């Protein structure tokens, strides 16, 4: 496979994942603002910060409001992580690697772009937001379904999956990072309404609020939530799950290409670090420090994968 093609697949799925996560984050923020109107501005601000686009936002706007943030995250092409920009980049990369995709995957991603382009042609009102976000989620589910249902399990699939999980790990880590202080055991007055709302916001932005209830109904504490998001391998958006998946797909590549690269060592190291830690040592060490380190290591892993598989010349 061409290095460029591997890179196109990897980024196509990073962007798909990113725009889906942006939509999910916006949904959580929207609920938060509805239920806690008193401090809406700072909640919207933390939504933008979590998306990693605070700098660009501040260059453009002076304040935070639902209308502005919705537009920034959904429709603004100046924001490379907006839903529309991510969808467009995913589709551009899909065009680049079209010969590596099944017709169904290509059509799904092309249809995703056409649908969202039309959907987001005009500003979205708060009335239309739930339906808009639902359609965005549905469209990305169609792409994912086409991928799982029709693609060969070979290196093409591996690069698509690696892109997905490197991006997803980054996303979950960012959410934890922005809200880490609400997860610190010291800060939590257990069961206070403030914490409940914040925790729900975090869980919702990774679509895990129901899963959490299934698993830990008894134990709604900061520690349990942090543990869930970082270490629980059953949760498809936890850091441990994402690293496990990335490592697994990298291992398939190692077998298929009969070559071990530095990125394999990096991934193993990242997995080992998660394995040796537990939530108590994380709190001792500092949750914020741990997450910042993780984001950095995960980015370094992504960069190493790009080098090892010659995405660019």
């Amino acid at each position, binding site marked *: *496979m*061409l*290095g*460029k093609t*591997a*890179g*196109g697949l*990897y*980024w196509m799925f*990073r*962007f798909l994942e990113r725009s889906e996560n942006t939509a999910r984050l916006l949904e959580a923020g929207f609920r938060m603002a509805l239920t806690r109107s008193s401090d809406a501005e700072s909640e919207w601000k933390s939504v933008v*910060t*979590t998306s*990693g*686009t*605070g*700098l660009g936002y501040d260059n453009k706007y002076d304040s935070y409001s639902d209308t502005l943030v919705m537009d920034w995250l959904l429709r603004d092409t100046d924001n*490379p*992580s907006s839903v529309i920009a991510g969808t*467009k*980049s995913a589709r*551009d*990369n899909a*065009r*680049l690697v*079209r*010969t590596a995709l099944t*017709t169904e995957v*290509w*059509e799904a991603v*092309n*249809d995703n772009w*056409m649908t969202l*382009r039309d959907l987001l042609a005009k500003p979205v009102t708060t009335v239309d937001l739930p339906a808009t976000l639902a359609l965005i989620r549905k469209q990305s589910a169609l792409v994912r379904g086409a991928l799982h249902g029709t693609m060969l399990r070979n*290196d093409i699939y591996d690069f698509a999956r690696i892109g997905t999980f490197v991006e997803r790990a*980054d996303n979950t880590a*960012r959410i934890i*990072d*922005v809200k*880490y202080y609400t997860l610190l055991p010291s800060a939590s007055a257990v069961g206070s309404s403030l914490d409940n709302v914040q925790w729900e916001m975090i869980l919702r932005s990774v679509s895990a609020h129901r899963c959490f209830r299934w698993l830990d109904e008894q134990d709604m504490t900061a520690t349990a939530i942090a543990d869930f998001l970082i270490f629980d391998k059953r949760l498809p958006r936890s850091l441990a799950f994402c690293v496990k998946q990335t490592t697994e797909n990298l291992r398939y*590549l190692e077998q298929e*290409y009969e*070559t071990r690269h530095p990125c394999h060592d990096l991934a193993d190291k990242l997995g080992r670090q998660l394995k040796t830690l537990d939530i108590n040592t994380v709190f001792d060490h500092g949750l*914020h420090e741990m*997450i*910042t380190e993780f*984001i*950095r290591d995960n*980015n370094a892993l*992504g*960069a190493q994968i790009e080098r090892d*598989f*010659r*995405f*660019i*010349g």
Partner: protein
Amino acid sequence: MPATLTRTTPYHIQVNRWTAVHSQREIAQKTGTHLHFSKVIKLLPRIGCASALDQYHEGMTTNAKSFDEMIRPDGSVTPPYAAYDAWFKCQDPARLESKAEEAEAFFRRTGITFNVYGQSEAQERLIPFDLVPRILSHREWTKLSKGIDQRVRAINAFIWDIYNRQEILRAGRIPKALIAHNEAFVPQMMGFTPPGKVYTHIVGTDIVRTGEGDFFVLEDNARTPSGVSYMLENRETMLQMFPELFSQIRVQPVSDYPKNLRRSLSACAPQACSGKPTVAVLTPGIHNSAYFEHSFLADQMGAELVEGHDLRVVDGRIAMRTTKGYRVIDVLYRRIDDDFLDPLSFNPDSMLGVPGIMDVYRAGGITIANAPGAGIADDKAIYSYMPEIVEFYTGEKAILKNVETHRCAEPEALQYVLDHLSDLVVKEVHGSGGYGMLVGPAASKNEIADFRKKLEARPGNYIAQPTLSLSTVPIFVDQGLAPRHVDLRPFVLVSPQGVNITPGGLTRVALTEGSLVVNSSQGGGTKDTWVLED
């Protein structure tokens, strides 16, 4: 506050770096100037199909100005269209309308779109597709294909001669100056014979028709003809929409083209190739207007789709960067112009090509299709000598006629052209895509006056041809059926094993009433082209 880490650089920014633009010409190369778009027409008869046909018959018998391929002036249906005519009469217009919508949705979904040069990149457009097929009889096609075969062989012999012994110049059959001062002439090709002695691996010969048996070659397109993906997708669309039509009427298939293309290119593998040749398609990138076609052909052939920055010279061969290291390519079907192929040999600013590929080529390390310098046969001044060229190399009279051509470089011809500008079509000798030409009968006085100045300043840059009354074929319009002018681009493959011509080709149709310009860049559409079985 936390989360100060910025996000990783997205790949599309890297893509943009690679596709950084260096000149106007490079933009044209990247975006392509061959095929552009307008919206798919919402065709569709609001009257019944039978009465639409009746009206069409009536129009053809009372005021046809050109030869119509379906209806004769006496109102009778020409033989190739008889079966289609019978089928069409029985159709329900509502069903046809929904079929047309299906076709449009199909094209959009599969992404058969073109970027339009000068428009924002979000604007990918569809080339309009008309549902009425253009039909040729077996006999008509046999004659056409014999003529094309003869012409393409002569062109390859001519190009070899020009870059080697130049006997045709020595024999005084065409003037030396025409070659020596020609932009399409590539001196680096002198004394070199490409693998299999093939220069034009892929040719798109543009044919126009003015009467029952009157076919003319308008252009030879020996460089990188585009449009073959439309030929294939148009047929695919028709098969999906009207399967019953194909069971009633026996139409020669076109679907073997990608297989034949691969076979034909493989047969031209270079000396250095051992084993099964590796074929790749070289594209300027996703912003080129014909990118869809490039990826389509790579996909259908099972070849890699590469860009210049995927390639480099490794141990005297051209190799592509793969996830497992560099892998050698034997045959490169390039869809970029000569000028951009190798910054070391041609345009030094080009980022689309491969530095050093010409040296590898000359040393037998790779086959480039079509060969650099093959464009010499595309020159419109050379075109005017094509009957002589065919005779010189084949010893036979040319089967296909040339359009009468006035070479403005010659003083007498120039005077004639200046005296008759409002009746003639004047073209740049190196032009393509319908740009930089004057269509006298359709031009305003000012346009003619402007063009006159250009012509007087550089007469050698132009040729002129009479305005041909191109044949018409019906298309769907709001009122029913209406005649529109068409041309035909058959696709021809050349290898040491022979010449292979796909039956039919791409029919381009001028959608505007009375218009003779069929280029999609100028509002043309396409039709499926049928060659009937014997």
